[in-house]
């Protein structure tokens, strides 16, 4: 890709909302820069209100001149600031736009053919006959025929109009085609049709396409590069494979996780929080109120779009942070269950290696499931990660700090940030403590705040796990609670210190199916709301795939397979994973026999 066909630099669109008195300026687009090469497909993705459509209109000069600043260069020619008449010769001939609502994009009183013809003859020196021929040819190549041209807009279906809109956009052979939400509001089949069609016209004409959409599946199929727009600013830009495959910006990551996809078995969860008000964007990084890893700097200064490897990311932390990183962990026990230490190993005894060289990463705000059969070493691995066990070899880093080397106050602080929900709730609470005392215990230990503040904190956290907060309930003892209530108490205790990472070992295995479902959804909801990392250790693949972003499969003390949940569930690579999947419970009696 040599010199770019289209170069956008520091493009801003700002206007005062009509009718407001000093209501502040709306910054619909706030300093966007990117290049588009000839023959390239660049996707602009982002939620509704991120400024995608504003961008499309700015590239055609459709905003009032005084609202637009920055530079738009097409083939080296500066377009921003040119007169309306000059724009008229650029529009459609050089840059064409297939708008979002094709349903209302055609003038209802003329036939489609007449509108196409008027467009073509406005820009190309064709006789009426030649124009009709060209249009007919074009429309045929898009899988439509003449009768569509003789029809009025209201006589056609939405899908047909979408394709005719595309035909109209292509009719003057533009250099750049902007396609605004080509697939939104369409059923799956017409969606596929449009995507294939776009693919075809792009390769045939070596067209440069700016694909504006929130449809990540279409992006994955069509785009060469992807730019992520958030609240009028670019968050990340890079190749399709990089940005969608391994998102770096927390927003990209969240966007991808919110996208429904047949490959994902997980239930959907939206991105927490809401798009900021374009008239009063938050200070600092615009994403920080919704970001799971925001630090003080994010609230103060706006991050610049900077190179990270081959892509550009606008994040002070350089993108998605690794919350926990474990390298080559190993742990062995003596044959009778006595712990052995590498240093004091007794050769006479048989040594069982529970964990053998396990490596894993957990990112900010991510739900990871660690699955494996009983005895695969997953509980040991979990305890190693929390720090309840010390690894024989290997390193663990939490938020970049090597915790294997920590001690004293630093370790106490670290424990606060990683919390553990053990497997057996009955075993993990003292029968002599009341609910209030159980949940307050970590606060008492860590000496945070005064007694009232701690009790208030307990109150809040019990509420968030859906438990009653009455005096009577607070005064209950563990044996007076049901299994589900007790497990919630244990989870509440883990949450009361506001941890960054919760490691939950078989959090629901003791409960009946209904309680399991409730609790697993609760865990996911709390995780999403608090933006924390969650590692769920479980043998129940059928259950954890509902909430996990990624799945790690463990067998014989090793992680034998890992990947996005959808990939593991739908395309397992390892035989063991396949066995696990086929053994997963199913009440479908037509399902194949194991």
């Amino acid at each position, binding site marked *: 890709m040599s010199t770019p066909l289209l170069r956008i630099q520091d493009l801003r669109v700002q206007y005062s909302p009509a*009718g407001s008195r000093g209501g502040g300026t709306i910054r619909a687009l706030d300093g966007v820069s990117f290049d588009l090469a000839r023959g390239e497909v660049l996707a602009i993705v982002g939620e509704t209100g991120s400024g995608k459509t504003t961008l499309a209109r700015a590239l055609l000069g459709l905003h009032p001149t005084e609202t637009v600043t920055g530079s738009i260069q097409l083939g080296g020619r500066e377009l921003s600031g040119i007169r309306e008449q000059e724009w008229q010769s650029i529009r459609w001939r050089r840059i064409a736009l297939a708008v979002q609502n094709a349903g209302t994009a055609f003038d*209802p009183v003329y036939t489609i053919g007449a509108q196409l013809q008027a467009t073509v003859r406005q820009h190309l020196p064709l006789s009426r006959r030649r124009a009709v021929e060209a249009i007919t040819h074009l429309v045929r190549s898009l899988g439509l025929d003449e009768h569509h041209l003789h029809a009025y*807009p*209201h*006589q056609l279906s939405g899908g047909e109009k979408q394709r005719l809109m595309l035909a109209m956009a292509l009719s003057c052979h533009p250099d750049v085609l902007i396609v605004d939400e080509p697939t939104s509001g369409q059923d799956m089949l017409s969606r596929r049709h449009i995507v294939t069609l776009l693919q075809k016209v792009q390769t045939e004409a070596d067209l440069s396409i700016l694909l504006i959409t929130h449809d990540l599946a279409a992006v994955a199929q069509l785009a060469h590069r992807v730019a992520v727009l958030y609240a009028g600013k670019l968050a990340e830009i890079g190749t399709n494979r990089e940005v969608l495959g391994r998102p770096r910006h927390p927003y990209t990551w969240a966007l991808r996780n919110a996208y429904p996809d047949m490959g994902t078995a997980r239930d959907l969860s939206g991105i927490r929080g809401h798009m900021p008000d374009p008239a009063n964007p938050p200070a600092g990084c615009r994403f920080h109120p919704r970001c799971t890893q925001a630090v003080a700097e994010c609230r103060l200064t706006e991050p610049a779009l900077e190179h990270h490897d081959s892509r550009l990311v606008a994040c002070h932390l350089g993108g998605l942070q690794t919350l926990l990183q474990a390298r080559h962990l190993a742990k062995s026990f003596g044959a009778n269950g006595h712990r052995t230490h590498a240093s004091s190993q007794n050769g006479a005894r048989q040594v069982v290696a529970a964990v053998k060289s396990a490596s894993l990463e957990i990112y900010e705000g991510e739900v990871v499931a660690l699955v494996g059969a009983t005895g695969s070493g997953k509980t040991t691995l979990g305890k190693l990660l929390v720090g309840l066990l010390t690894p024989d070899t290997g390193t663990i880093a939490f938020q970049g700090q090597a915790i294997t080397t920590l001690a004293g106050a630093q370790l106490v602080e670290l424990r606060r940030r990683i919390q553990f929900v053990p497997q057996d709730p009955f075993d993990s609470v003292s029968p002599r403590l009341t609910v209030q005392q159980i949940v307050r215990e970590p606060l008492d230990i860590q000496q945070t705040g005064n007694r009232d503040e701690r009790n208030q904190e307990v109150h809040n956290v019990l509420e968030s796990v859906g438990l009653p907060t009455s005096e009577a309930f607070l005064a209950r003892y563990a044996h007076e609670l049901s299994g589900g209530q007790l497990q919630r108490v244990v989870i509440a205790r883990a949450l009361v210190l506001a941890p960054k990472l919760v490691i939950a070992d078989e959090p629901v295995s003791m409960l009946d199916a209904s309680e399991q479902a409730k609790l697993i959804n609760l865990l996911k909801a709390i995780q999403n709301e608090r933006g924390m990392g969650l590692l769920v250790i479980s043998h129940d693949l059928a259950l954890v795939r509902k909430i996990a972003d990624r799945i790690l499969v463990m067998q014989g003390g090793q992680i034998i397979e890992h990947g996005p949940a959808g990939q593991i569930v739908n395309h397992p690579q390892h035989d063991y994973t396949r066995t696990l999947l086929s053994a997963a419970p199913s009440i479908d009696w037509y399902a194949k026999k194991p």
Partner: protein
Amino acid sequence: MLVVATRYVERVLRYPFGRADVRHVFSSIGGTTAVGLVLFLGFVFVAIFAPVLAPYNPDAFSGKPLEHPSNAHLLGTNDVGQDIFSELVFGTQISLIIGVGAGLGAVFLAVVIGGAAGYIGGWLDFVLMRLGDMLLALPRLPMLILVNALIGAGVWQMVITIALLFWPTTARIIRSEVQRVRQRTYLQLAHHFGSNRLYVLRRHVLPHITPLIVFGLVTSAGRAVALEAGLAFLGLGDPAAKSWGLMMRYALNLPGLLLTDRWLWWLLPPGVCITLLILSLTLVGIGLESRLMPGLRRQ
């Protein structure tokens, strides 16, 4: 698609003068509703306190014929020596009674007919609405002239005939709103919860059409005032009720009126009063429409 088209036409039909947008213009000038309301209330005040405000009984021969304006007769006297200013003050009563009375009557009919058509639907809806279409297609003024010529025009006859002619416009609007409300889920739910029709009408339907009722009242009243003035001007009003239109009629009956200055205090004031009263109602209508019916404008 046809739905879109008809809705589009309906939108414009409903607001032929697109008052919603006029609002923008007026809000930059200054509160439309306020101006209209102040004007209108001013007329109401004059009508109520007419006996106090008017120096003479308008029917009394309080001066010589055709006096020029003076301290005794602010606007002079007419051809039989009645005080023009007092006529003007008492004329307010007639215009307001007919305007408000006919407006109320028309809106009452519109609520009953439009509400029934929209809420009950079916053949009743069809019959009522076709009846409305017919009435809309009739030329109103000749119709009124015919009726009034036949029965002789009293104030109340006029109120009733105007109300009988004016209901379809508002009824149409109310009907479509009731139809819209009827399809709302919360209304169906209310039925589902076992509420009776009266409850649903009072609790869910009426609040929706109240702004329409007020709007219909204001616009119908304005048109009724104009019609009454016109009929009186043509000599078809109640000869006993000396309205502004009738004053103009009498003035014009005087040969050569326009050739002297007399029209300045005899003809102009009632004309200005009629215009201002109608204008005040229109302005209130403009304000009401934009303030009370924001949801209706967005379709």
